[in-house]
């Protein structure tokens, strides 16, 4: 079948989520002719309906991902589908990686190092928090940086109930840092703490691409093309420069989009997959894969949620979905006991409605019938929770790959994620679970229990590094082998730390956009 050809653009970006939309706005405002290709449909604020049931329509509906290992299973929950991608239902937890997270290999002889240090990224973290709008107070356990532009959101009833447990454990609970407006900011409303963040925030108090990046990008002339699933990056015969991308439109027709610069800003799995699919004579194992590391060093965070029922009323349906408060005390101690490795962070007091994966009903999956009803009636006003994120080491065995024996709806090899938590990270996670149960007991719960360990966040697979023989891109996300191809997103992280990745993702996007602006003349032919 003949491919539809389009006029060349200067920059084509695959993906319209937080990475893609931020990059598009930055480069559009810098005068580049930018086109963004989004696999899913157009989204509007009116689709952000306050319902856990309705909100499922915002989630991933692209090709299925196969997952194997003991820390997998949440790909479709984490990814978005349509304008803004996962940025329409993210929780807006906003954290900086700590200085040690950038040098794990050098300091501990395990995992990997980043090619940059915290100091390199600090100004971009500062810039990003102003751009997105971040609420939070000074916390001595966080890395140095500019003050947050807004004060923290108020302490919730849940956090107040849980706080004395942290005190008893010798830890300190602090206000959380969130890309959620505690007060009106930059023309966007302040949060009303109604607990519907993951169903989408149509008032724009939570920074999402429909209210933040896309208005800027559209104003700057960026074109956004929906229902456009990018299947490969094309290169010249020498394999040294990308010439554009191929995508499938809503009619199943292949399109060719020529471009001077190609940026893959998809979710982690799809960044690696797109490069793996982009084989050619000069790069038979995938674009940017001369090192053999493409797809490898996938990581996640090992999550365990502690649940409890409190004597006092906790109003669990209110607040923010991300977390109301935070504990980073002890985060920098990556070796808390013999045989245990990794940082951990406590995210405390997530708003919980009755249903969905994070709802109060699924906190006790074994209950049914009258017992479930009785529990829910109590939990609706007395439930509290907190989640610990534990670090997963970067190891080559955990990876994103293609399964040539299975084809997706587009006839392409299916994506396959393999991820198992290294044993010393398992031990760290178990320590954290015990700590959490002690905290909830000390807080005076009438009942406390821990959920199973699950994955949260998908990271790595197109890691950055100094050595082209051991990484896919340089610190700007630029492929070592093809200078006009960039990657944006958490797939670039060599290590994940133990905190949510979006602040770091955003800081890297701003840094890469600045690099492309600065090197415009050499990147454009």
């Amino acid at each position, binding site marked *: 079948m003949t491919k539809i050809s389009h006029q060349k653009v200067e920059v084509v970006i695959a993906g319209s989520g937080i990475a893609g939309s931020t990059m598009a706005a930055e480069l559009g405002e810098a005068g580049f002719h930018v086109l963004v290709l989004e696999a899913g449909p157009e989204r509007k604020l009116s689709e952000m309906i306050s319902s856990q049931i309705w909100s499922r329509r915002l989630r991933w509906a692209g090709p299925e991902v196969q997952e194997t290992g003991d820390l997998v299973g949440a790909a479709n929950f984490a990814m978005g589908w349509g304008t803004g991608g996962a940025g329409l239902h993210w929780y807006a937890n906003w954290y900086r990686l700590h200085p040690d997270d950038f040098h794990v290999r050098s300091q501990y002889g395990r995992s990997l190092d980043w090619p940059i240090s915290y100091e390199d990224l600090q100004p971009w973290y500062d810039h990003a928090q102003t751009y997105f709008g971040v609420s939070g107070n000074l916390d001595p356990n966080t890395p140095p940086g500019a003050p947050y532009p807004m004060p923290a959101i108020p302490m919730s009833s849940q956090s107040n109930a849980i706080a004395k447990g942290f005190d008893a454990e010798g830890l300190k609970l602090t206000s959380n840092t969130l890309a959620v407006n505690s007060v009106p900011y930059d023309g966007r409303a302040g949060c009303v703490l109604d607990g519907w963040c993951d169903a989408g925030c149509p008032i724009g108090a939570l920074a999402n691409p429909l209210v933040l990046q896309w208005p800027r990008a559209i104003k700057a002339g960026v074109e956004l093309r929906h229902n456009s699933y990018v299947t490969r990056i094309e290169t010249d015969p020498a394999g040294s420069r990308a010439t554009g991308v191929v995508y499938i439109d809503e009619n199943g027709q292949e399109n060719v989009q020529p471009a001077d610069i190609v940026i893959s800003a998809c979710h982690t799995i799809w960044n690696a997959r797109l490069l793996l699919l982009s084989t050619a004579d000069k790069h038979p194992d995938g674009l940017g894969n001369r090192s053999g590391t493409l797809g490898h060093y996938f990581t996640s965070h090992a999550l365990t949620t502690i649940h409890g029922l409190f004597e006092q009323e906790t109003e669990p349906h209110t607040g923010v979905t991300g977390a109301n408060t935070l504990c980073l005390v002890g985060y920098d101690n990556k070796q808390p006991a013999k045989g245990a490795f990794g940082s951990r962070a406590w995210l405390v007091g997530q708003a919980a409605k009755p249903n969905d994966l994070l709802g109060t009903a699924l906190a006790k999956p*074994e209950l049914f019938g009258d017992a479930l009803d009785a529990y829910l009636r109590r939990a609706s006003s007395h439930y509290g929770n907190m989640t610990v994120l534990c670090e997963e080491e970067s190891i080559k065995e955990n990876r994103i790959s293609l399964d040539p024996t299975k084809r997706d709806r587009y006839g392409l090899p299916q994506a396959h994620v393999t991820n198992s938590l290294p044993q010393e990270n398992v031990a760290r996670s178990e320590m954290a679970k015990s700590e959490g149960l002690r905290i909830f007991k000390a807080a005076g719960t009438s009942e406390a229990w821990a959920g199973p360990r699950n994955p949260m966040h998908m990271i790595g697979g197109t890691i950055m590094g100094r050595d082209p023989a051991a990484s896919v891109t340089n610190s700007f996300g630029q492929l070592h082998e093809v200078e006009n191809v960039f990657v944006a997103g958490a797939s670039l992280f060599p290590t994940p730390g133990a905190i949510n990745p979006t602040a770091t993702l955003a800081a890297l996007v701003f840094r890469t956009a600045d690099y492309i602006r600065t090197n415009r003349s050499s990147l454009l032919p």
Partner: protein
Amino acid sequence: MIGRRRFLTRILPTPIWASLGMRSLSRNAEAKTVEQTSYKQLTHSEADTLAAWCDVIVSGARRAGVAKFVDQSLSGDQASSVLLLRYLNASDMAGFYRKGIIGIGAESHHRFSAPFPQLTLDQQREMIAAAVASKMQVWNEPDPNFFYFISRSDAVDVVYGTEAGFADLGIPYLAHISPPKPW
């Protein structure tokens, strides 16, 4: 795949059904409701079995339309689905439910020589408890524990996850944009 299918139910306690009190059900009236409903993917028999199964897990699920809820999502594409299953295994959602309903029937006949909707409430609870404890005798595919987890979520959605359900639990709904209909 086991880790994925036991997403949140890997560690389940011993059966708790024995401690549950009896609940009276007006089955005839509810069955009539099923008969009057049209389905696109499920047969009436499949819908009746699913509704009966979910109604033991969450009382009121049948009346709230759980079978219709599932059928409606299975009738569209993945993008329009509102089932929790789409997060965890979206490769063949209709097949998943259909095989699960067949599993319910097979287990019910094996244990009690009758279809699940015709069992006594105690027998139905015993079946649910066996799914919770991964102790099914002949039902293997899909994993009964995972099928319980998913169908329980469906039942919770239609009974407790709507504006009416919130009100029944005494939870202020606080919508930015209210759902135009429950699902």
